[in-house]
C-alpha cells in the first residue's frame, strides 16, 4: 500500500512540478502599478521622455495594442513624424494630447475606436510625459513644463492615495452654447462615429434615424452607453465613451437629446 501511496504522491507532485517549472520558464511580465510622477518646473525634455517611456511600456499599458499592427497604429519610431499630419490644424503635441484624452476625436483610418480615455488611469503629468515620449519617436520634443503646469501648486498629480479622481467636469467641458446642438455634437466629435446629415462614421447608430427613439432612451444612451446596445451594433458595444455625462452641462445634454429626438 505504501508503494501505491508513493506512486500517487509522485504523480501528483510531479504534475505540479512540471506546471510550476513551465510557468516559471516562460517570459515573466509583471503588471506595474502607476507610480507617482512629480515634475519640477525646470524639467528637461530628456526627463520627460524617460518618464513617458516608462509609462508607455509599463503602467500606461500602451503596448498592449500599439505596435501589434492590427489593433492600433504602430507609434514607435513614427509617432513624432506623423502626428503633425493627422490633423493639420493641430500642432503635434496638441494632437497627441487629444489622442490620449479624447481618443474618439480622430480615429486613424482602418482602425476601430477602441482607445480608452487615459484620464481614467493616468494623471495629467503622466499624459504629458507620454506625449513627450511619443514626440521623441521620429520627431522633436516640444512639450515643456509650461504645457504641463509642472511645479505649480494644485497641479494634477497622481497622489497614489487610493483613487484616481476623474477629470473635473469644468476642465473638459464643451464650450459651445446649448442653443447649438449641432455644434455641440461636432465639438464632442460625435460625428466621428455617428452619421449626421449624411456625413460621419459608421461606428454607432446614425443620428439621422433617431427620430423614433424616446428621449429617455437617448439620454440614457449618452449618460450610460452600456445600458442599451442598438441592434446591429452589438460587436461595437463598449466603444462609446462614458465621459459625456461629465462633460456636457445639463442644458447642453437636454439640447442634444431634444435635437436627436426631433430628427425625422
Amino acid at each position, binding site marked *: 500500500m505504501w508503494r501505491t501511496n508513493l506512486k500517487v504522491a509522485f504523480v501528483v507532485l510531479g504534475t505540479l512540478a512540471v*506546471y510550476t517549472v513551465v510557468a516559471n520558464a516562460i517570459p515573466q511580465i509583471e503588471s506595474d502599478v502607476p507610480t507617482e510622477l512629480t515634475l519640477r518646473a525646470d524639467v528637461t525634455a530628456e526627463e520627460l521622455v524617460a518618464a513617458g517611456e516608462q509609462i508607455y511600456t509599463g503602467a500606461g499599458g500602451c503596448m498592449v*495594442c500599439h505596435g501589434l499592427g492590427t489593433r492600433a497604429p504602430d507609434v514607435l519610431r513614427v509617432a513624432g513624424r506623423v502626428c503633425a499630419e493627422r490633423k493639420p490644424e493641430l500642432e503635434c503635441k496638441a494632437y497627441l494630447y487629444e489622442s490620449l484624452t479624447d481618443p474618439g476625436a480622430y480615429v486613424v483610418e482602418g482602425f476601430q475606436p477602441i482607445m480608452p480615455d487615459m484620464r481614467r488611469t493616468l494623471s495629467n503629468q503622466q499624459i504629458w510625459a507620454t506625449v513627450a515620449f511619443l514626440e521623441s519617436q521620429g520627431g522633436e520634443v516640444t512639450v515643456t513644463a509650461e504645457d504641463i503646469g509642472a511645479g505649480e501648486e494644485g497641479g494634477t498629480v497622481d497622489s497614489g492615495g*487610493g483613487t484616481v479622481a476623474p477629470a473635473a467636469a469644468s476642465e473638459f467641458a464643451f464650450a459651445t452654447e446649448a442653443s447649438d446642438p449641432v455644434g455641440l455634437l461636432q465639438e464632442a466629435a460625435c460625428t466621428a462615429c455617428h452619421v449626421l446629415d449624411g456625413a460621419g462614421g459608421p461606428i454607432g447608430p446614425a443620428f439621422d434615424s433617431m427620430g423614433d427613439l424616446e428621449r429617455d432612451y437617448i439620454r440614457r444612451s449618452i449618460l450610460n452607453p452600456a445600458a442599451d446596445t442598438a441592434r446591429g451594433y452589438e460587436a461595437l458595444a*463598449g466603444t462609446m465613451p462614458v465621459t459625456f455625462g461629465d462633460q456636457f452641462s445639463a442644458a447642453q445634454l437636454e439640447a442634444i437629446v431634444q435635437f436627436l429626438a426631433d430628427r425625422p
Partner: protein
Amino acid sequence: MSGPKCMRGGAGAPRVAPIVLLGAAAFVALAPEAAWAQEAVRPYGDFPVIGARGAIWISAQVHLMFAAFVLGVPMFAVVVEAIGIFGGDKRYDKLAREFTRLLLIAYSATAIWGAILTFALSSLYPRFWSYLTVIFGPSMWLYAGLFIVESFTLYLYYYGWDRWSEDRAKLGHLGLGVLLNIWGTIVMFIANGWLTYMMSPPADVTADTAPETVQLWSALFNATWMPINIHRLIANVVFGGAIVGMYAAYRFLAASTDEERAHYDWMGYVGNFIAIGALIVLPFAGYYLGREIYEFNQTMGITMMGGFMSWLWIIQAFLIGVLFLAGNYYLWTGMGRIPGAERFTPYVKWMLLVLVVGVIVWSTPHTMIASREEIVAMGGTHHPFLGVLGVMSAKNTAVNLMILTTFLSFLLYRRANKEPVVPWAKTGTLVQGIALGLSAAVVMFYGVYGYFVTAIIRIGFSVYQVLAVLAAMVFVILIDIAIMRGATSRGAIQWGRMPARSQYALFILGVTFTWLMGLMGFARSGIRQHWHVYEVIRDTSPQAATPALGPAATMISVCVLIFLGLVAVIFWLGGLVEKPAHRRADGLVVPSAAAEPAGSGS
C-alpha cells in the same frame, strides 16, 4: 451500508459548517459601515512571511476549490440518483450515495476556509472590506442564511437516504437533492456578484461614488455576473467529476477484492465521463465570458488576451491539451476491458494525431507583450511564422476539432460492445459520419476564411464554429440512441480489468483541473491589475502590482497542494467510516468487513 454506520460517519464534523458560517456572518455584521469613510481606519494589515495578499490568495483559492467541489458534486449526484430510480438499477443509487458522502466533511472545510477568508479580508484589507460590506451587507446575510439552509438540506439528503428509500418517499428524497442544488446555486450566484462587482462595476460607479449610494441590485447584476455564473456552474461539475475520479482511482489502486476494484473502476469512469463531458461545453461558456469582458471594457479584454497575461493562455492551452490527452487516453485504455472494442483500435492513432496537432496549434503564442528590442528583432510583435498559427482562427479551429475528436472517442467507447439490430444501422452510422465530417468541414472553412476578414468579423466566426460542433454532437447522439435501441451485447464490460496506469491518468486529470482552476482564478482576478474595484478603488498596498506568471504559478501550486492534502485527509476519514475497527472482548482490534462491493445493495 447500514444506516447507523452512516450516522456514525458524518456526525459531528459536518455540523461545524453552519456554526462557522454564523461566526463569519457575525463578523460581517460587526464591520462598521461608516468605517469606509473614516481615514482613521487603516487601509491594510500585514501577514507574516507571505504577506497580506498571499494570505488572501491562499484562503480565497482553497475556499473556492472546496466550494466548487461541494457545489459540483450534488449536481451529478442527484442526476445519478435519478438514473437509479427511473432506471431501476440500485448500483446508481449506491454510487450517488457515495458521491454525497464525500460532501459531508468537504462542507465543513468549505465553511472553515470561508471563515478564514472573511477574517483575513477584514483584518488585512479593513478599509476595502468595509467598502464591500456597505454595498453588499444585506446579500452577505442572505448568503450566510442560505448556506445554513443548504447545509441542513445536505444532512437531510444524506442521513435520510435509508429512511426515504422506497416509492414516493424516494422521490421526495430526490427532491431534497434538487433543493440542495438550488440553494447551492443561489449561494454561488450571490458570492459571484461580489467578485464580479470588483471586476466590472456599473458604469455610473466612479472613484467619487459613495458606497452608500450604490444600489445593491445594480452592483450584483453587473456586466460579468451572469457569464461568471454560467461558467462556474459548468466548471464546478467538471471539477467535482475530476475529484471524484481521483478518489475512485485511489480506491481502485488500494482495493483488495475484485468486486471492490470493479466498483471503483466504474466510479472512476463515471467521474471521468462527467468531467470530460462537461469540459467539452466549458469553452463555449468561456467565449461568452470573454466576450462580455470585452464589451464591458476593451482595455480589460485586451489586457487579458494580449497584454501582460498573454502567456497565461499558452499555459492554459498546455493544460487543456494535457486534459484532452489524458482523458482520451483513459477512454482508449478502458476500451481494453470491453469485448468488441478492438475493432475501433485502428482509429485511435488518428484521433491521437488530431489531438497532438491541435495541442501544438493551440499552444502557439501569438500576441505577446514584448520589449522594444524584441519587437524590432521580430519585425513586429507577431512572429513571422508562429504568428500565423497563433491567431484565433487557427486556435478556434484546433480546439473545436479536439472537441469533436474527444466526442468521437466517447461515441466509440459507448458503441464498443454493442451490436445494433435496427435495419437502418449502417445508414444511420453513415449519416453520423457525414454529420461529424460536415461539422469538421464547417470548422475548418471558417478557420481558413478567418484569415481573409477583419478582426471584428473574425470574432463572429467562432460562434458558427461552436454551433456547428454543438449541432453535430446533439444530432449524432440522438441518432446513436435510436440505433442502439434493442442492441445486442458482444459481452459485458469487465469492470476492474483496467491497468493501473489508467488510474494515474485520472490523478493527472484531477491535479490538472485543480491547477487550471487556480490559473483561471488568477486570470480573472489579475485583469483588475492594481485595482480592488476596476477603475474605482485603487490598490495602494505594497503588493498592488500583479505578479508575473512564475510567482503566480508557484502560489497556485501551493494552493493545490493544500487543497489536495486536505482532500486526502477527508478521503481517509471517509475510509475510516467504512472500516470501523471492532474491539473484541479479549482486547484485540480487528477490522470489520471491507466496504460493500458494487452491486451488493444496502
